[in-house]
């Protein structure tokens, strides 16, 4: 018997277990998946939890429920990967593998920024990229009386790069509904050149910040948080005051990647952009947030990667060359508040454009334009996630590679 080992039972790992168990012979391949945590979170829900749109129970389930029969599920901490010996050391046992899939994801590292985890952490400074952070923020917002709300990105890359902007949009709607928008000043702070960095998007969407009265501070690389004056401070001593700071801390790959010497300086694993094979070891494959590929760290990306990676694992096992297939395809809903959302569809090289999705000319979803339909799509996606995506069921009419059907290249970027 040969062993296929999957590290991490999040979105990517769970999908791979489901894809591969139905494709690998039971009498030839053992499949084992390891994750130290019992709970599987629907992470897109962390955006809605603070605004009381979702309840706790809508964003978490027991992870084992989504692991298929015939896959050995081990709930233990991973100590170290030993790529030269084809072994993985867990807290009290060592596993051998013939093929390894690393799906250990990414997580926030607030301790990387001086003063972030200080006296104000979880009092006036919150994250919403963890279940605990999102929940604590909800409780804060329920009784917050207003002031300066600063939504802040520490540095790229981050998981779901549009989530901070969505948070700012949803905050605008939330405070309007509560009748206290006049008491809240919202500022969006980014290390990039603006809220929108791709020419098509800044042309099509720049109106959103104005319409929602969200102030922008760009090119801000945080150096530390001043807990005494309640300001974030950058390397040029630019200071932005806050009463409530919602920050996206540095995102990093899991510590086990660092302990195993497999990652870059953010613990992301150098991975072939198109085959998803690790660059250092031919029998190690990487998927989802754990890779260093320049695609968005998002569930849709993991979903498209999983289809390519499944084929490539089968090709690898049989000794065939791998498909250079993955194109960086991402497909993301972006909540813009007031029960509307945008949808974007793009890849490594093609910027988001206008058009209809998934059916050319019909839609029903609109690309890069606000619509109520898109918002319903985002909400429906939670059901799709739990019932289709994790189980590796292909989403009808949505292909792994980006399709150019139905796309309209009509946006002429502004001359700058």
């Amino acid at each position, binding site marked *: 018997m040969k062993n296929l080992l999957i590290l991490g039972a999040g979105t990517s790992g769970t999908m791979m277990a489901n894809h591969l168990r139905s494709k690998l012979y039971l009498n030839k391949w053992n499949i084992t998946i390891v994750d130290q945590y019992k709970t599987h979170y629907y992470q897109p829900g962390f955006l809605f939890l603070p605004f009381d749109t979702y309840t706790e129970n809508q964003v978490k389930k027991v992870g084992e429920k989504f692991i298929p029969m015939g896959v050995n599920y081990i709930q233990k901490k991973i100590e170290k990967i030993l790529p030269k010996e084809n072994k993985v050391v867990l807290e009290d046992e060592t596993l051998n593998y013939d093929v390894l899939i690393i799906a250990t994801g990414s997580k926030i590292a607030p301790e990387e920024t001086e003063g972030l985890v200080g006296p104000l952490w979880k009092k006036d400074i919150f994250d919403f990229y963890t279940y605990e952070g999102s929940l604590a923020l909800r409780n804060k917002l329920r009784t917050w009386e207003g002031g300066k709300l600063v939504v802040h990105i520490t540095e*790229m890359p981050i998981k779901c790069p549009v989530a901070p902007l969505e948070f700012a949009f949803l905050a605008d709607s939330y405070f309007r509904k509560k009748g206290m928008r006049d008491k809240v000043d919202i500022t969006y702070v980014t290390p990039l050149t603006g809220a929108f*960095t*791709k*020419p098509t998007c800044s042309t099509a969407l720049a109106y959103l910040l104005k319409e929602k009265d969200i102030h922008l501070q760009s*090119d801000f*690389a945080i150096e530390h948080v001043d807990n005494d004056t309640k300001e974030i401070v950058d390397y*040029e001593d630019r200071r932005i005051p806050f009463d409530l700071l919602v920050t996206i801390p540095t995102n990093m790959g899991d510590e086990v990647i660092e302990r195993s010497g497999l990652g870059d*300086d953010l613990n992301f694993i150098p991975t072939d952009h198109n085959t998803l094979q690790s660059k250092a070891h031919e029998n190690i494959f990487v998927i989802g947030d754990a890779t260093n590929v320049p695609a968005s760290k998002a569930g849709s990306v993991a979903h498209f990667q999983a289809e390519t990676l499944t084929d490539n694992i089968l090709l690898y096992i049989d000794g065939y060359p791998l498909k250079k297939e993955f194109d960086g395809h991402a497909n993301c809903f972006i909540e813009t508040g007031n029960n509307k959302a945008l949808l974007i569809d793009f890849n490594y090289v093609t910027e988001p454009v206008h058009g209809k999705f998934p059916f050319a000319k019909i839609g029903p979803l609109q690309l890069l334009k606000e619509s109520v339909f898109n918002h319903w799509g985002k909400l429906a996606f939670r059901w799709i996630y739990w019932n289709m995506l994790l189980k590796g069921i292909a989403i009808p009419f949505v292909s792994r590679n980006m399709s150019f059907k139905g796309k309209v290249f009509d946006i002429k*970027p502004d001359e700058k």
Partner: protein
Amino acid sequence: MSVKTIAGVAVNISEEGYLEDMSQWNEEIANEIAKEIGIELTPKHFEVLNYLRDKTAAKESLTIRGVGKSGIVTIKELYGLFPKGPLKFSSKIAGIPKPTSCI
């Protein structure tokens, strides 16, 4: 995309003035782009620019943090070299694409 003559060379640039093809870059082009931004390039600038170009050629992602850890400059020094937007300006002068997010 359009063609612009910089330091006597016709190069393809994006609508925001970033070089589309990093192989068209040379030091004179760097000097001229820097002058437009208001930066006088020194050998230290070129050390950073070459580091950024090497990373980009190796298809590795660029972060301010990464530059800070490169051993060439600290982040504070990077700001000193390229004030008011170190990555934005250094990537433009280095002839590599602008760092972007997904929208």
